[in-house]
């Protein structure tokens, strides 16, 4: 219904150094009633995308459609006030000169709703975000989390087709952030509104989203479910951004269609290969620390390699090791908390080759969608 179709969207800021925040040739289908996250480091173009969807910016090229209605094109845009969207800003943008009630009722007044109905709807929405009883407070009398809810309520009360959220949790402390995360997810399920969410926090993106669009330097790197982008990253940038990862240069020893054996230092792994990879090609391997097992050396396990502990730190819920392989290759390994190997001790490591991704060397800037 309110699905958003973005086609070949580009936006450049004149005079801005290094194309910070620019966007190049973005195509994205955001299905109705889904929670979609735009994920990337600062300056990757995610906020630009959000502001283009909101209608604050005019694209240089490309288009944005909602329900097949053209909203944005270089020749003109439907202004924000006529898009029936909501937006929650990073700083909440709660009006400091208006009370909670006045903040929330604003959009209803603009829509010329009767006072009685408006009051009812405000009450209902404040109840939904657990702010009942605070109608008369001014924002400076609220905590950060409460201001956040006011911003949410203000956007939701007008029943928008789409809610845009620009790093709404980044100003909250860790505990509150976690709780609001759950509430946001629940809210989205209950309201049946399409959420477009911007964040640079991959954990947040994984926890909240139905789909994640990973952006880097203004280009889409991968668009898929949280599982896909985490376990099957499309390139090394995505692999790197979606969590801790060991990136190793490797050489293909033998290729059989889409799988093959690769060599990285002393390691020999059978992995799935990117299309068109042949014997003796160079690839990059992405191996997540939790997919490496560390054991006392016994010399029997298949695919295991001897290693030596270089650094270790105990993190409470797990133990983290840096191990050095023959030839100097260094790997980060996450083991259960009880795995206890002293520094300089000999160990052996085993890699779950199923979980290893291989990319052609230096392929990060190619847009790739699945």
């Amino acid at each position, binding site marked *: 219904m309110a699905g958003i179709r973005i086609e070949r969207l580009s936006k450049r800021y004149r005079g801005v150094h290094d194309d910070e925040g620019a966007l190049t040739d973005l195509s994205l289908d955001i299905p109705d009633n889904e929670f979609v996250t735009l994920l990337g480091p600062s300056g990757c173009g995610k906020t630009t995308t959000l502001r283009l969807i*909101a*209608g*604050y910016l005019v694209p240089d090229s490309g*288009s944005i459609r909602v329900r097949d*209605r*053209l*909203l944005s*094109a*270089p*020749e*003109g*845009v*439907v*202004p*924000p*006030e*006529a*898009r*029936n*969207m*909501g*937006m929650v*800003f*990073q*700083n909440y*943008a*709660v*009006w*400091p*000169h208006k009370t909670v009630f006045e903040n929330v009722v*604003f*959009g209803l007044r*603009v*829509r010329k709703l009767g006072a009685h109905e408006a009051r009812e709807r405000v009450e209902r929405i404040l109840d939904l975000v657990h702010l009942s009883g605070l109608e008369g407070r*001014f*924002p*400076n009398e609220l905590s950060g989390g409460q201001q956040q809810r006011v*911003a949410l309520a*203000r*956007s939701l009360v*007008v029943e928008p087709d789409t809610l*845009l959220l620009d790093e709404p949790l980044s100003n909250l402390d860790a505990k509150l952030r976690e709780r609001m995360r759950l509430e946001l997810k629940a809210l989205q399920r209950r309201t049946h509104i399409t959420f477009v969410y911007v964040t640079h926090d991959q954990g947040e993106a994984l926890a909240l989203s139905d789909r994640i669009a990973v952006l880097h330097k203004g280009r889409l790197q991968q668009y898929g479910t949280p599982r896909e982008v985490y376990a099957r990253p499309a390139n090394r940038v995505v692999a790197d951004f979606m969590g801790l990862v060991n990136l190793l240069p490797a050489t293909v020893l033998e290729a059989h269609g889409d799988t093959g054996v690769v060599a990285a230092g002393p390691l020999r792994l059978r992995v799935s290969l990117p299309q068109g990879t042949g014997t003796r090609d160079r690839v990059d391997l992405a191996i997540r620390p939790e997919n490496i097992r560390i054991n006392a050396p016994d010399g029997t396990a298949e695919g295991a390699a001897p290693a030596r502990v270089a650094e270790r730190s105990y993190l409470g819920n797990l133990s983290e090791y840096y191990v050095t392989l023959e030839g100097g290759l260094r790997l980060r390994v996450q083991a259960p908390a009880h795995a206890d190997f002293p520094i300089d001790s000999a160990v052996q490591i085993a890699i779950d080759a199923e979980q290893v991704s291989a990319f052609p060397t230096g392929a990060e800037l190619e847009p790739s969608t699945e």
Partner: protein
Amino acid sequence: MTPATARAEAREGSPGAPRLRLEHVVTGGATVALVVLIVLPLLSLLWGSIAGEDALTASYFVRAVSNRLYLQALLNSLVLGGWVGLLSIAIGVPLAWAVARTNLPAKSFVRLTASLAYISPPFLIAIAYVNLFSPNAGLINSFLRDVLGTPALTFNVFSMAGLVLVTVPHTFPFVYLLAVSALGAVDASLEESAQILGAGKLRTAFSITGPLVAPSILSGALVAFVNAIALFGSQAIVGLPARLFTLPTRIYALFDFPPQYGLASALSLILVAITVAALYLQRAYLARRSYVTLAGKGVRPQLIDLGRWRWPLLGFCAVVFLVAILLPYGALVAVSVSKSWGLAFWQNLTLANFRFVLLEYDVTRRAIFNSLVLAVLSASLAALLGALIGWIDLRTRLPGRRFLDYVSLVPLGLPGIVMAVALIQFWLKMPVPLYGTLAILLLAYTARYIPLGVRAANSALRQVDPSLEESARILGASWGTTWLEVTLPLIRPGLMAGWILVFVPAIQELSASILLFSSNSITLAVAVYNLYENGYIEPVAALALVNVAIIGTAIWLAHRLGAGRDGGRVGAIA
């Protein structure tokens, strides 16, 4: 879908919104206003300085730089500005240091001295000092000569020294204010780092604190210089009896019949060149080297325990208070209630002078009324235009918005009398007969003080995050609704500050008014000056005090209104 249908849908998308939206009309209006107020008069001034009978000519500039009369005036202006700049540092820096960095007692007294000196009309200080130190009738001079019998101690105010003396009280606050904020922004840790590395107090002051605050101090001195050379009132009141001409008084004299517009324009441009050069130096060089903004919040300046040295320092502050406030205001109050000013003035006190200027004399009554109207209107216009221009600069991507912002700052470099010459040049050529009306004075005031309005609005808008306005838009509010509901309420305290910043100088404006007034559009300051010229010493003092009373009332009112229902809240969040 083709681009054309995109546009059609874009229009459809905002039902009831015509293609030409309110925001375009309003921003366009602000731009036109700036052009009419500033750009066109300035172009006329330029044109007037080079337009001969039937061809372009350089003869006005040649005369301006070859005639000894004008060269002397130029030299006098520079000497005056130089001395005033130096003395402003000599007074402003110790006061600033005392307030920002020492445990001086009675700091609020020092702050009050600086604020009072800043808002006092400069011509009023000049008149007060004439009453005390004119060679023959000055009260203190008569006392020294006739009662104490020490004529050697008398001081002739009609001299360069006198002119500097009556100007500095108005200008030292510029240095003081900038130095206070600079000194207050130097975190103790910067100095403590030097001290822990072995530097003594003196060495720390010279190698750390000094270089950190020097740009602000020099910046203040340049602003003091620029303001000093533009003050027509004191230069006319104190300079003319001594035949000490400066550029503003020379330009003024050129409007005696027959007016010499070309030469006046050329001299005006020379004056502008000096001011602009000084301001350019200040903005382009010093402001960029000002480190004040580097420090974040929690700045903790190091306070120095003065020990017994605080008494001499407090004494110094008291002398400044005496010279800048107590003597002039004391003199004015005394003169205003005396029948006839002289050594025996206290023998028959009267309120007749106040009755005369407030009730009986129609010229002064009209002048007070005119000035009130002009100050209120010009302050409101400057604040409104400032808000719009600041908004265009900060919130839109309109091409030329930087230029708009730049143009709005140009009047900073235009002494009042130059603004008057430019407006005369422009409006005399226009078919609309504005010359001699209140309207031309309103244009002059608004144009002169628009930089204050723009800067106040600019800093207010900078504190309002754009997302506060964007939230209103995406909730469906139009541009106009967003302005009324969000932008204006949030920048109101800043606009009020800008309003009062314009009102205070406007109610006492003399430099431009003196060339633009007519008997119907006479203003307060012009009435003071005319009465003074005609020797009405006592009513002049009464009228000057009325002027000060209006300024005080306005500041008090603005203070009350500025802190409204949410004045405190806005600062807390935005």
